[in-house]
């Protein structure tokens, strides 16, 4: 698929339907526009509507709004104007929530981005965050670079990159890490951020290492595929990642089955370090009749896997649940487990898997493991029970199941992992604590 030595991007593949292997990217100057999210997808800290952050600003250059996209097809290639100058008092925060902040956390507007391009489609002026493959941040002075003078203190630019990385990872599904380039004066760096933190390269000087810079830009834009740039190697996008019209669907293996994701995600974490949970609807490949819930997360390796807990809940003996077979309010577990590395089938995918050969050593107990679950229902929240007797029945089942299950000494925090699907278990967890304290 890839041709390192051709000067033409491999944008028109012949037969390959794995769109992660299609390399067709362009650099966009977005420092004066705001990348957006798909309609209906809301990520805290990322404006849905650019007007939210542009309010109160009168600019000499009318910035096109999403609805205006049809009229400015060439805008993406047009050199942008300078950033609109604003007084600090009137400058809106880039998260659209508050005004007047100059904190680096509010600068959620990358300078340049390398985006996946869908050449047959009409290109619009504002790229989606999910189009972005690489982010590039430019600073005037080399002193603003990401590497600290003392070698350890978190710099402002590193924090800024990390903040954009968490949004990038939230908006672009199934990513293992987010790739960033920085150019500060004559110094340039490459950095990645993942669920365990980040790695920043040593400083390169654009004057002395211009050839290296050229090679890096070439590799990022023309050679490296989506997997090389952070996409989870176990999933296959079945739509182009640069599509404007369609949120890409992914073929995702879980256990012995393969599922196809549907539409926008239901929920996604916006934290950087941690589980990075991503939940979406999915259907079994070849069976479109039934919809499942697919949960993709990086679990702490020292914790019990969520799929294991579900299996234990559902394998509780009949006696321990007072002979009641179904579990009211608990999500129906279908399949799940840790994900194994396709290149090394005996090893699960961890953050350390993509950090081989660079970065500091990751603590063995702090090396997140990629984990997936498929559920057939989402369970019920306490306030969703329609009758009191139904709620009490669920509570009774939970309490009756506690002897066996909780003798295994589940930490309550483990149950909190189920927050989105197992509210009843949370409820029961509380009741169990009360029971224990009474005993």
């Amino acid at each position: 698929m890839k041709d390192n030595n051709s000067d033409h991007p491999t944008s028109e593949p012949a037969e390959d339907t794995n769109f992660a292997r299609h390399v067709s990217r362009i650099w966009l100057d977005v420092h004066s526009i705001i990348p957006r999210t798909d309609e209906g997808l809301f990520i805290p800290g990322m404006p849905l509507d650019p007007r939210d952050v542009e309010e109160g600003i009168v600019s000499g250059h009318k910035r096109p709004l999403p609805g205006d996209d049809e009229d400015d097809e060439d805008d993406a290639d047009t050199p942008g104007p300078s950033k609109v100058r604003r007084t600090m008092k009137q400058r809106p925060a880039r998260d659209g929530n508050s005004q007047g902040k100059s904190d680096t956390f509010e600068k959620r507007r990358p300078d340049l981005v390398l985006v996946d391009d869908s050449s047959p489609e009409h290109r619009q002026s504002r790229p989606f965050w999910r189009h972005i493959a690489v982010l590039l941040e430019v600073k005037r002075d080399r002193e603003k670079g990401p590497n600290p003078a003392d070698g350890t203190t978190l710099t402002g630019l590193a924090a800024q990159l990390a903040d954009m990385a968490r949004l990038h990872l939230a908006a672009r599904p199934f990513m293992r890490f987010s790739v960033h380039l920085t150019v500060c004066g004559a110094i340039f760096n490459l950095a990645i951020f993942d669920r365990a933190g980040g790695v920043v390269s040593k400083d390169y000087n654009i004057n002395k290492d211009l050839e290296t810079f050229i090679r890096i830009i070439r590799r990022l834009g023309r050679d490296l595929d989506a997997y090389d740039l952070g996409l989870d190697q176990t999933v296959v996008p079945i739509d182009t990642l640069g599509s404007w019209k369609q949120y890409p669907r992914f073929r995702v293996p879980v256990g012995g089955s393969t599922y196809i994701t549907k539409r926008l995600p239901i929920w996604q974490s916006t934290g950087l370090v941690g589980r990075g949970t991503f939940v979406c609807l999915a259907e079994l490949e070849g069976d479109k009749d039934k919809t499942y819930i697919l949960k993709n997360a990086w679990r702490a390796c020292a914790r019990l896997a969520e799929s294991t807990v579900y299996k234990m809940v559902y394998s509780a003996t009949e006696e321990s649940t007072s002979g009641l077979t179904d579990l009211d309010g608990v999500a129906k577990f279908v399949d799940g487990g840790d994900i194994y590395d396709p290149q090394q089938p005996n090893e699960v995918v961890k953050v350390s898997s993509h950090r081989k050969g660079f970065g500091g050593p990751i603590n063995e107990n702090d090396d997140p493991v990629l984990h997936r679950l498929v559920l057939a229902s989402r369970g019920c929240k306490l306030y969703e029970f329609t009758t009191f007797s139904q709620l009490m029945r669920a509570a009774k089942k939970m309490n009756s199941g506690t002897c066996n299950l909780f003798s295994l000494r589940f930490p309550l925090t483990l149950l909190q992992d189920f927050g989105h699907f197992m509210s009843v278990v949370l409820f029961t967890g509380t009741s169990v604590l009360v029971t224990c304290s009474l005993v």
Partner: protein
Amino acid sequence: MEPPTTPKHSRVTSIQHDSDMGRTPSYPTSHYPSSTNIDDAKANLKTILATRVSFNDPNIVNVLVKPDEVSADIVKALQDNISKNQVIKKFLADVRRKAIPLESHMYKPLVRRNCCSCFEYSCIE
């Protein structure tokens, strides 16, 4: 003797918004609560990340990007192209001399603040 009273509180009739429960909304039409809010994310980054970033890594470029896999012909062609491009040449020279102009010096300001504390188009002048 007055009977004991219970402090009055507003009756919760329904939970319509995530904000009713003190949560950051996660998805306009979703009832799933978000466990992440902006303040938490900031605190997360500033405190936890500080010890989790490796700086000055000498290998990440070679391992992740593999720049040496670009053929020498392409690099030479691109360098030739750059050497002929006056804009890039000037930019690199400015970088070398640490004389990169501020953006505000490169463009005519698009907006200016007038004495009435409001913005107006610079082209109106």
